């Protein structure tokens, strides 16, 4: 009976990293074995946030599931509503009015901006630069204020519905969005000086947590993790949904593969979101914001299967929706980007990492445990 050298109790330290740990994003844990400072083996444990969403969705009406799906990803909930609504629209053949499409895109981009601000600041916070994290979350809060005005809620908006959005833009909303964008844009150079140009931040993040380009296809990596390693994958460009084909933008991509590069990708994503929001605000057409739906308590979505995809701030989000023509969905399977990032990729990346970089690597993948566990 040979002892596995990676977990040999005589040579390694057995450590639990989380779930009660300030360096872990959300509620998950990593079990690790250390040889000195180096990780020899890592196992991620998920499931602390498992609520059985997919089972609950089978027990509720199609429309009742909207309050559920937004709770799958807490920092950026609109993605889930959009993805689920896209699948229903495809199955039921519902047309979305033009104005609703523009407003949806606006909401998605605002959510992406909020999430990226938090993630970019959080990357600084995890190496001890608390000021960056504080500023990031403060500016995210201004975006949340806009959400509150538009949808009535700060975090869970439940704004997108099949065939449109729940209500029209309030009067003067565009002006206030511009004000917030200007406010954020004015402070962004200071962010750069504090975080990206910080010598110690560079020392801590350059060359650490390398995602090799060949892993992208092997593991199915998406979002900033893939785009930091030279990939140009972005569902907004590849399979445009809503009005992304009418907007003018380039996919952000860098080739450094390390944590610093992913921070730059996030920083450029913030710029991209701001410019996209400006473009959308300039072009929202007039018209209705929602299609008339049948009686929702007796609404049967035609039988069929569809895998809908949207691009979240962390990468491609997929909903595999199966309908058997009844009042309730037969099966909804959510494929969040963190699924692969946090379980197989993190276990792979942590091998050989320094204990000081564990949380750093984890945050750079922007893992969001609720979307793994649902």
């Amino acid at each position, binding site marked *: 009976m040979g002892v596995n050298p990676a977990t040999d109790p005589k040579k390694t330290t057995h450590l639990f990293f989380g*779930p*009660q*740990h*300030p360096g872990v994003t*959300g*509620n998950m844990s990593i079990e690790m074995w250390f040889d000195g400072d180096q990780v020899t083996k890592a196992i991620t444990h998920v*499931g*602390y*946030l*498992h*609520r*059985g969403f997919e*089972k*609950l969705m089978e*027990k509720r009406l199609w429309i009742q599931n909207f*309050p*559920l799906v937004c*709770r799958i990803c*807490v*920092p950026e909930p609109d993605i889930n509503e959009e993805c689920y609504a896209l699948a229903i629209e495809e199955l039921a053949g519902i047309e979305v009015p033009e104005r609703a499409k523009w407003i949806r895109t606006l909401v998605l981009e605002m959510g992406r901006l909020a999430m990226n601000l*938090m993630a970019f600041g959080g990357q600084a916070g995890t190496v001890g630069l608390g000021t960056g994290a*504080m500023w990031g*979350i*403060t500016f*995210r*809060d201004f975006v*949340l204020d806009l959400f509150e005005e538009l949808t009535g809620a*700060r*975090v*869970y908006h439940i704004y997108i519905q099949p065939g449109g959005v729940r209500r029209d833009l309030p009067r003067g909303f565009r002006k206030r969005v511009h004000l917030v964008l200007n406010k954020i844009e004015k402070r962004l150079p200071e962010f750069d000086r504090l975080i990206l140009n910080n010598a110690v931040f560079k020392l801590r993040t350059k060359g650490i947590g390398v995602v090799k380009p060949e892993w992208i296809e092997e593991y199915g990596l998406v979002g900033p993790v893939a785009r930091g390693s030279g990939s140009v994958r972005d569902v907004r460009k590849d399979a445009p949904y809503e009005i992304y084909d009418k907007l003018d933008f380039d996919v952000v991509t860098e080739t450094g593969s390390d944590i610093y590069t992913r921070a730059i990708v996030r920083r450029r994503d913030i710029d991209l979101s701001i410019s996209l929001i400006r473009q959308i605000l300039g072009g929202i057409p007039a018209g209705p914001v929602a299609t008339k739906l049948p009686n929702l308590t007796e609404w049967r979505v035609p039988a069929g299967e569809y895998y809908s995809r949207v691009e979240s701030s962390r990468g491609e989000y997929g909903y595999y929706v199966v309908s058997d023509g009844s009042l309730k969905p037969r099966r909804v399977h959510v494929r969040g980007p963190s699924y692969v990032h946090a379980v197989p990729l993190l276990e792979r990346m942590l091998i050989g990492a320094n204990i000081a970089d564990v949380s750093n690597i984890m945050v750079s993948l922007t893992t969001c445990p*609720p979307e793994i566990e649902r």
Partner: protein
Amino acid sequence: MYCNHPPEKPGDKKEVLQKITNMARANSLWVTGYGTGCGAIELRPLGTSRFDMERFGIAMRPTPRQADVLIISGYLSTKTLKRVIRVYEQIQDPKYIMALGSCTINGGMYFDSYNTLNVLDKYLPVDVYVMGCMPRPESIIDGFSLLMKKIKEGRATGWKHYKENLDYYRENQKQIIKNWDLPDYNW
């Protein structure tokens, strides 16, 4: 190092300087940094300039040994409950629990889920419930001020209740944690 005997039942002994101590306890609430559910997302803005909980002496502590308050931020799955019990019992007395969100009160929108518990106070003594899904930072601050008021008046005695009725709580906990492998008295 685990204890092998049940904890001493705290009596109602009069302590000197009780009033001042209660004031100090109310004005220096240290929160365990454990985001057990989705309510944790609103705890972060609570620390930043919009809401700034440090004004009230509320600070985050990374380890339960040094904390006073455990915030159950939303639904608890059975897997998390096990960890939460462990964390709660490591906090030194006096300790308080604040529960956020409708889902801790009666299950909220997960009332029929097979993995989240519905009634939190069957398993842990809750001092303050904050309702809403999710509760806004303002209402969390309101919950804190209610907790402060209770502490100042000496009414936040959930931890005493927990020690006195440990058997009841243990029974309930063991009912839903199927693979119970915690030490019974682990503070």
